[in-house]
């Protein structure tokens, strides 16, 4: 049974560009959350999707947007990249019903903005 799958694993982009990161949740999970983990920091909540809608959002600018598809997979888009967007982006899935039992995390996408 596959866990959470994220692609790509590594990415290098130039400042000002746009990037799309992808996530497939664990089988049976319907809720996807995205986190940004800067070097040496804990994960910071970006947003959460359920039933193809953004349900919660953290303190991130509108440059960060997302989408959830009918098969529960999700994308994170970041526009107008800044150097400070360099981080490990983690996708986590859960079941909305019983969602407080903890997330299953993917291995992340390491984004480097130069």
């Amino acid at each position: 049974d596959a866990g959470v799958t994220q692609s790509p694993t590594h990415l290098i982009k130039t400042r000002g560009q746009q990037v799309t990161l992808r996530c497939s949740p664990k089988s049976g999970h319907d809720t996807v959350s995205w986190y940004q983990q800067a070097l040496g920091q804990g994960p910071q909540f970006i947003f959460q999707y359920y039933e193809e809608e953004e349900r919660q959002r953290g303190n991130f600018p509108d440059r960060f947007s997302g989408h959830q598809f009918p098969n529960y997979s999700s994308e994170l888009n970041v526009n107008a990249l800044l150097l400070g967007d360099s981080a490990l982006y983690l996708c986590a899935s859960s079941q909305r019903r019983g969602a407080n039992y903890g997330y299953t995390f993917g291995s992340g996408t390491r984004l480097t903005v130069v």
Partner: protein
Amino acid sequence: AQSVTQLDSQVPVFEEAPVELRCNYSSSVSVYLFWYVQYPNQGLQLLLKYLSGSTLVESINGFEAEFNKSQTSFHLRKPSVHISDTAEYFCAVSERASGTYKYIFGTGTRLKVLA
């Protein structure tokens, strides 16, 4: 909003020695607490969780954590560490909104087990 404080950014300890990683959270009516572990170049793995019931919770690899409501703490302990326990450990608290939960993480504690 809830918050989590992990005061120790790094904890070096010799193999087979005991260890305690500290975690304090902001008070709330209902508290759900978690410890996650992150190995190098990997995502986070759930180590253990406290939802309700017994205040002492255990993981399958010998870690335990105790929920202390009066001290708003959820410290992680292991009586004897192994080299393989070297990793970053994150304490998290869940916050309910819009019918679902999000998790708020501390800044992490890097555990380094020395031979």
